[in-house]
Structure formats: structure tokens, C-alpha cells
């Protein structure tokens, strides 16, 4: 049974572990030579959430992810996974799908998946069973004996996804997981990620595709030039970034006169939306002193109100605005 897109199980998990942190990155800095890759960055990832790690190219996202994966060590600061400082044995709790990813070209799909799974600590038998489950699930069972070089890029990406999640990690890190997928497969992978989250996994998600951030992330952090410049629940951030702008459609006896009146009273931007009426279309910024109800009353006094929507900033808007202001 699902309630508003969340399974009962997920809501239960949320209630139980609501404030529990799976991952805490505390004051981490990292420099390569003279180049500062991370400057005193801290993030907290709640159990069972999808955490969007955003930022322009070269902001330090990949460095942070590599530090979490123990590929490289922070110069200062610490990382705590599930209550313990990061240790070598933690790698089996993490599944990492890097942005720069590939597979051994001359190996067969099945062999390769088994090898990578065993490196993550699964026994051969266990790995085989789980691979069979996933291969059937993604309908790629007949690829087992193919060589990677015979597969298309999207096909290889599917294998990589399976290998990433196979050992049932507590923490999944996806760096641009949808690149190379056609829309159908991208959707398939998105649904799989959401399902894994519902089953209790925590996901860190780094992407430039803002619509997937919008759809999937509970929490985002924005990095720019090695610094964290924004961090919080996506809804909170949106609330913080909305600035009382409403999109309106109004049928009036005299469009020109009403236009002039609106422009005089409010800050007005042009807007276009699809409509069957011949109406005035505007985005209007309402001052804090005017309540929404008063604004609606004012508009209805001017004519017939056909369209009234609060403009909520998209993740993309927030991204661009924050980076440009930084």
C-alpha cells in the first residue's frame, strides 16, 4: 500500500530513524598541491533519505565522494559512517557508481560482475544468486556470456548499476547515474533507486540533471569553489527561496488600463502560459505587507480571475541563483 508515493514501510522507517544520521562529514578540507578542492565542508545524511550533492563542474563534489569512499584521505576533518569513524572495512557498506566508469573490456559480463561483487566481500555463491535475481529483474539474463566490448554504453551502464547495488550497501553513492541511458532506461534506474531507498538504503546522488533532483531528493547540499554554500531539506530551501511571486491570468474589460494599474501598484514581469481565454498574463511580486487573500480580492475586483499559481522556485532556479550570487 502506498500513501502519496511513499510505501508504508518507508513512513515507518522515517518515523523510527527520522533524525538518525548514517553519514556525517565534519569540517573536511582537502587540497591538491596549491589547488583547494574542499574547504571546511560538513554534511549530514539522514538514514533512508536521498541526498542531492549539487554544484557546478569542479566544485569539489567528486573529491568529497572519493573521501567518503576512502579513495583519498582528507587533509583535515573527519567522516563518520553509522556512528564510527571511517575504516577500511566500511567499504562493504558503500556502493559507489562513479561518474568516470567503465568495465574490463575483454571480460565476460557474468565473470566480471562476480569478480567485482567478490571484491566487495560477497561469497561466490551469494554473488551468483543475487546477480541472477538482478539480471532477471532488469531482463539482461542473456548477456551473461557476452564480452563488455560487445555491449552498448547503456547496456554496460546497467551492469555497473547492478554491481553497485549487489552487496546491499547501506549507503549508495551515485555520480551522474543517468548519463548514457535512454529515457526509458533512465526511468527504470530511477525507480530502482527509489525502491532501494524504500527498502532502507540511504542514497547520495550527484547530478546536473535538475529535474531528477526535483523528483528524487529529500535533502540537498550545494558546493561551489570548494565551499558548501547551501544545505537543507529541499522543501525548506524552496520555501526560503520563494519570493511571493504569483502567476496570474485575468480577464478584464480594459486590458491596457488594468495593466497600467498593476504595474503601478506591484512589481510585474511578463508571463506566458497556455490558456483558452484572451486574458492578461503576468507574474506579480506581492510585497510582504499584502496578504495573499488581499491580493486575490484585489485581482477579482479588477476582473475575472482565470489563473492563480504561486511561483515556487525549481531546483534549477535555486542552483543558478545561488551560484551566480556566490
Amino acid at each position, binding site marked *: 500500500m502506498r500513501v502519496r508515493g511513499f510505501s508504508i514501510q518507508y513512513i515507518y522507517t522515517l518515523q523510527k530513524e527520522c533524525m538518525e544520521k548514517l553519514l556525517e562529514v565534519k569540517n573536511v578540507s582537502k587540497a591538491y*598541491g596549491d589547488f583547494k578542492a574542499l574547504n571546511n565542508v560538513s554534511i549530514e545524511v539522514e538514514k533512508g533519505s536521498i541526498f542531492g550533492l549539487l554544484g557546478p563542474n569542479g566544485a569539489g563534489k567528486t573529491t568529497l565522494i*572519493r573521501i567518503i*569512499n576512502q*579513495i*583519498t584521505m582528507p587533509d583535515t576533518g573527519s567522516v563518520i559512517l553509522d556512528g564510527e569513524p571511517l575504516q577500511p572495512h566500511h567499504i562493504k557498506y558503500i556502493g559507489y557508481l562513479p561518474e*568516470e566508469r*567503465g568495465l574490463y573490456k575483454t571480460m565476460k559480463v557474468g565473470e566480471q560482475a562476480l*569478480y567485482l561483487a567478490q*571484491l566487495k566481500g560477497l561469497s561466490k555463491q551469494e554473488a551468483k544468486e543475487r546477480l541472477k535475481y538482478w539480471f532477471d529483474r532488469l531482463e539482461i539474463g542473456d548477456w551473461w556470456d557476452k564480452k563488455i566490448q560487445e555491449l552498448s554504453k547503456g547496456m554496460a551502464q546497467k551492469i555497473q548499476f547492478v554491481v553497485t547495488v549487489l552487496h546491499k550497501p547501506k549507503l549508495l553513492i551515485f555520480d551522474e547515474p543517468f548519463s548514457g541511458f535512454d529515457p526509458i532506461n533512465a526511468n527504470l534506474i530511477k525507480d530502482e533507486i527509489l525502491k532501494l531507498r524504500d527498502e532502507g538504503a540511504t542514497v547520495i546522488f550527484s547530478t546536473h540533471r535538475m529535474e531528477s533532483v526535483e523528483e528524487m531528493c529529500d535533502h540537498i547540499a550545494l558546493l561551489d569553489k570548494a565551499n558548501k554554500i547551501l544545505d537543507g531539506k529541499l522543501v525548506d530551501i524552496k520555501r526560503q527561496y520563494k519570493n511571493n511571486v504569483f502567476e496570474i491570468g485575468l480577464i478584464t474589460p480594459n486590458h491596457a488600463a488594468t495593466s497600467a494599474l498593476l504595474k503601478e501598484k506591484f512589481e510585474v514581469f511578463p508571463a506566458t502560459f497556455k490558456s483558452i481565454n484572451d486574458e492578461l498574463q503576468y507574474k506579480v511580486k506581492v510585497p510582504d505587507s499584502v496578504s495573499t487573500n488581499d491580493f486575490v480580492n484585489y485581482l477579482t475586483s479588477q476582473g475575472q480571475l482565470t489563473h492563480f499559481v504561486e511561483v515556487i522556485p525549481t531546483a534549477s532556479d535555486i542552483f543558478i541563483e545561488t551560484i551566480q550570487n556566490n
Partner: protein
Amino acid sequence: MNHLPLIIKREYLTKVRNKSFIIMTFLSPFIFVGIFALVAYLSSLNNDTNRKISILDESGLFADEFNSTPHTQYKLLKNVSLEEAKKEAETEEIYGLLYIPKTENLDSLSKGITFYSEDSPSLSMMGDINDMLETKVNTLKLKEAGIDSETIKSLHVNISANQETFKGKETSKLGSGLKLAFGGAAGYLLFMFIIIYGNMIMRSVIEEKTSRVIEVIISSVKPRVLLLGKIFGTTLAGITQFLIWVVLILVLMTVVTSVFGIDTAAGSPSQQIIESSVDGGTQQVLHDIMLEINNLPIANLVVMFVLFFVGGYLLYASLYASVGAAVDSETDTQQFMMPILMPLILAVYVGFFTVIDNPHGTVSQVFSYIPFTSPVVMLMRIPFGVPLWQQLLSVVILFGTFIGMVWFAAKIYRVGILMYGKKPTYKEIFKWLKY
């Protein structure tokens, strides 16, 4: 989690199953033996050509000296002038004309002898002819001086001092040669092995970078373990191929030589040495060889050969691995090849020049501890007697350096991935080593 066996297994299996590896493993011995057979066949073909040489002997002294062989036929000309003989040689496709003028004494005779031919005659044939003339003139001159050549022969002595160690063990000159041969063979084998399989290791290290699987791998495995696994796995694949080659070549050689009846050792220096020593007494030589083999510290040699061979190979393999770790693609590796091979070449030269001269001299001793040269130099020294503690010390240094090199390569590797082709300064490399 111990990943090493897993990585070794994968490296070994992917190498061994690789199509070109399989083809080369089984094709190379055939090519090798084929080339050998071809060369043997061609050289026999070369010798088969039948040469005719005419001799115009105006002095009349050499009439009995030239006996025709299967390859060369001599024809004595009589009662013709030099000009006529030349013309005849040219028209009748005779290879050459040996002209011996008539002179008053033997000294001027030896200066007047001339060989005419279409183009420059072969060296070996001229040697034969010169030898024959020389012997004859020598005998004649001795006779002139009133000395019997038989007397000279009987006066000639061969001296070979008996050698004995202070402890009373008999040794022989042959022993030194045998010891050097052992060291030289071991050194050469190591050299070949490194050159053939070092590149394979380097390519294997670059593999993860070109296929971009690297980030997934090093998020599960420590770079040091990965590199060690690659070195061991590739080495095992190399040993497999090498053994197959040795067996196949031996079998094929036996088949080829018996089928085609090629005399493999014909004319080789070793055969000549054995032949000449047979004259001096086969029994004595065999006795010497057995004596020396018994004198060699066989068990010590075998154990140390294995240790130094493996250690030396692994050390150089880790050097190749470091190069692979530092670069992004194989095309960038060329410039690093020379610095790797230099110490190896140095080792072989030091081995051959100083150890022969004095197995326990300062230079030999120093180079038998330096890990990059010790596998060759120490192996050459051991047959001459090196205290066990020195051998062990050298082995420990060798393996210690190997571990150090792998650690170093792993650091470079980890940093190489993260640097996105930026050229690092030495200061930065030093900083990275601390990560």
C-alpha cells in the same frame, strides 16, 4: 577481506585466456624453430655450392698439396701462361685462379703468390688456401735450415698446472669457466624474462585506467593490493608461457634435428673446444668436469637461483608497474624504458667484467648488495664461494626494495588517478607519498 588471491586469479585467467597470448604461446616456438631450421638449411645450401679453383704452379712445389674436397675442386694447370689461365678461368666459370710464380728463393715466393677471382673471395676459403701454403712453405724453410719438422713436433709441450685449494680440494681451470657459465646463463635468463614480461605488467597496470574501471576497483581494493595482485598474476602467466615455450622448443628441436638431420652443434665453438680437448685426453676432461660439478655448492646454488631470480624479476616488475601507474596511456611509457633497463645492463656488464676478474673484489661485492644489480652479480659470485650471511643479506635487501617499490608505485597510482593529467612537481609527489 583478503582480495589478493582474487586479483591474482583474475589477472592470471584474463592473461592466459587472451587470444593473442594463446596464439603467441603456441606459435612462437614454431617460428623460433622454423627460423632455426631455415638458417641451418640455408647455410648448408650455401656450403653446397661447388667451387672450382685452378692452380697455376710455376714453382712446381705445391703439386701434391691441394686435395679436392666436396665443396672445392682444385685443378692443376700445366704448360699455360698466366694470361691464358686467366682467360680460361673467366670463360669456363671457374671460381678463382691461384698463381704461384717461379722464384729463386722461398721468401720472394711467398710474396709473389696471387689469387685471381671474379669478385672478393670468401674469407674462409682464402684462409684454407693460405694455411695450406703456409704449412708447406714452413716445412720447406725448416728443411732449408736443416731442421726436421718431426723433431720440432716432439719438442712441443703442453703445461696445465694442477690446482688445489688450501683445504685440499682439487680444482681446475675448467671450473672457473663452468662457474661463469652458470652465472652468465642465470643472468641472461633473468634479463630475457624481464624484457619479455615487464611490458606485460606495465600494460596490465594501465588497463584499469584506459577502461576507466579504476574508480570502482579502488573503492573496494587498496592500490597496493591491486598492484601486487597484478604483478603476481602477470608473472604467473609469464612463467606459464615461458615453460610452455621451453618444453615446446625442446620437443620441436628434437623433431626437427632428427627429421632433417641437421647437426645442431656442427662448427659451434663448444664443439671445437671439446674436439680439441679430446686430443688432449677425453678422460682427463671428463674427470675435471665431474670434479667441478661436485665441487659446486649445488643446493645453495639452486635455492639462491630461485630466490634471486624471483626477487630480481619482482623488483623490475614493480619498476614497470610504477611506470604504468604514473602514465595515462601506453604511448607515454617509451621514455621510461631506458632508465629501467640501464641498471639491468649495468648488472650484466659488471658481472662479466669484474666477477671474472676477481669474484670477491670490492666492486663485485658492492654490486652484489645493490638490489638492482644483485640478482645477476650475486648469482655469478656464489659459485666461487660467498658466505651464507652475505647471500641472505642480499636477498633481504632485494625483497625489501621490492616491497618498497610496490608501496611507492601504489602512491603514485592513487595520486595519478586523482590528478587529471596535471603534471605534478617533485614537492607535490613528496607530499602525496604521505597520504
